[in-house]
């Protein structure tokens, strides 16, 4: 049976671990995210849907 302190520590580690996991998920591997246009360069040659025939 773990002591109170050990249990508190255990909970703390779990909470921090889960928080870290979610932060990594949100900010991590960019291949899994749709890029925002904030730091991208708009292309020079394209047509928008409203310009497309049909």
């Amino acid at each position, binding site marked *: 049976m773990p002591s109170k302190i050990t249990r508190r520590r255990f909970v703390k580690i779990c909470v921090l671990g889960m928080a870290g996991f979610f932060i990594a998920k949100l900010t991590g*591997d*960019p*291949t899994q995210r*749709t*890029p*925002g*246009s904030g730091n*991208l*360069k*708009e*292309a*020079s*040659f*394209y*047509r*928008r*849907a409203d310009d*497309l025939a049909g």
Partner: protein
Amino acid sequence: MNKVECTLCPRHCKLAEGQRGDCRVRTNVGGKLFSLVYGKPCAVNTDPIEKKPLYHLLPGSSAFSIATAGCNLHCLYCQNWEISQSQPENARSTPMSPEEVVSKALANRCRTIAYTYSEPIVFYEYTYDTSKLAKDKGLLNALVTAGYIEQEPLKQLCAVTDAASVTIKGMTEDFYQKMSKGTLKPVLDCVTTMKKMGVWVEIINLVIPTWNDSDEDILALVRWIKNYCGVDTPLHFSRFWPMYQLTNLPPTPESTLNRAWDIAKKEGLRFVYMGNLPTHHGNNTLCPSCGKLAIERRGYEILQDHAPNGKCKYCNFQLAGVWK
């Protein structure tokens, strides 16, 4: 809705929100098309200009060379497939603005910026903005490209481009379809437009055993160059080396390249070169007027230059090219 159609290259990818083009580096965000690789080169080097290969553009000088991920062709033999066929996220890149590219080129005493390794057409905006700045600073701009581009963007780019080494991979639509998942006509149109717009053009042809190494294949290419570009347009036959998805073939035998060289010379092309055969005499430039050795090369190295500023010192004949 929110679809866009990219009109940069002949593929005309129609992209729904979040989708990427065939090149992997242009994407639809909120009904607008964006480049994912602007200012994000994944390869940056200082190379001899002979490596591009551009043998008639300031021989012996250095070219500051940049590339990003992506390509709009998918050649089975691609030598740089690790970057050309990758997503930008998977190719490690260093942020570098057009201003930084130009200042690094000047700091490295380069006289040219080469947009190379992968395909400058797919990083069009980066190429164009950098080229404009480079021109203002007195640098030359050279494209190393497969020429798979639409005419309107090409013409805009030609206005800031001094030279191009364009690969004509084969002379049939069937070849382009099977080897590169592309088409031939836009490439030929690209070369003729570049010539018309005053860009110095050198043609590359990778000779691949069983694919494009027959006399007919070579003759078709040589005659097209002669008729549409002129006999002063350098042609580089390059030796194939088994790579990527074409490892089942042997390297091109030297005898095949010699045969190609003979055909091109016989048809009257003045400057025919051999690529990937560093010690071959086909790396040298001979004066078309007196026939003497004008520039002797070994690989990318100039051993002797008897044509300072492109003028043959034996007969004063001015060789075609960009020499100053």
